C-alpha cells in the first residue's frame, strides 16, 4: 500500500525541472517583443523584407542586429503566421 508521503513523492517526481536555460529563455519574451517591434512593423509594410525574413529568419535577425535567441525566434515565427 502506498503511504501519503510516497504518493506525494511520486507527484513531485511527475514534474521534473525542464532543461537549464529553457525557462530563462521563455522569461525573455517581454524583452524580445520590445526588440521585435521595429522589425515587425517593417515586415508589415515591406513585402521584400518579409520574404527575406521568411527565407532565413535567424540570419535576417542577425543582419538587423537582433540576437536570434529561442524566445525571439519563437515570437517572430508566431508573428509571421498567416
Amino acid at each position, binding site marked *: 500500500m502506498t503511504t501519503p508521503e510516497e504518493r506525494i513523492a511520486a507527484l513531485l*517526481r*511527475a514534474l521534473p525541472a525542464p532543461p537549464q536555460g529553457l525557462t530563462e529563455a521563455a522569461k525573455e519574451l517581454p524583452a524580445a517583443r520590445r526588440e521585435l517591434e521595429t522589425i515587425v512593423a517593417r515586415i508589415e509594410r515591406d513585402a521584400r523584407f518579409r520574404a527575406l525574413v521568411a527565407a532565413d529568419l535567424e540570419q535576417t535577425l542577425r543582419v538587423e542586429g537582433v540576437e536570434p535567441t529561442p524566445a525571439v525566434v519563437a515570437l517572430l515565427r508566431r508573428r509571421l503566421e498567416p
Partner: protein
Amino acid sequence: MDPASDAELVARCLADEQGAWDDLVDRYARYVYAIAARVYRLEPADAEDVFQEVFARVFERLDTLRDVDALRPWIAQTTRRCAVDTLRRAGRETSVDELPDGADEGLAQLDEAMTVHAALTGLSPDCREILDRFFTRDESYRTIGAELELPPGTIASRIARCLARLRDVLDPDAARAPGRKTPAHASGGKVRRRR
C-alpha cells in the same frame, strides 16, 4: 497555499506588472515540459521546441483568454496542439483529441502534481529546496549534502520530515486529527531511492 490565483496572475501579466510574466513561466514551465516530454513522449529537442512555442503563443494570446480561471486548461490544450503538430511533422498521424496510450492518466496526474507543487509554497525555503533537489532535479543524497554542507544521513531525515510537512499542508484536517503519527513514524523514517 498559493500566493496568487491564476486569475490574479493573468491580470498582473496583462497590466505589464514587473515580474508577472516570470511568475507565470515559473508556475507552468514544468507542466508544459512534462506534457511534451512525458505525456506525448517527444524527443528532448522536440520537447524543447514545443516548450518555446507554447510560451510564445501564451505570451502573444494571453489577452484573448476569455476565462482567466481557465489558464491551466488553456495552457494544457496549447501544449497538446503544439505536440500534435510536432508529431504530424514527424509523420506520425494523430489528432489533438487523440492522445497517446495512457495520456489521459498522465494529464490527470500532472494536474494533481501541480497542486502538490503549489503546496510547496507553504513550506520553508529549506524544505522547498531539499525536496526540489531530490525529487525533481534527481540529485543524490551525496550531491545535496555537498551543496548544503550536511551529512547524507541528515539529508534523508530532512527529506522525510519535509515530505511529512508537505502532507500536512495538503491535508490540514488530517494533520490536526488526534493520534496522528509523527513524521518519522508516518514515513517509516525512510525515503526510497538514491544514496
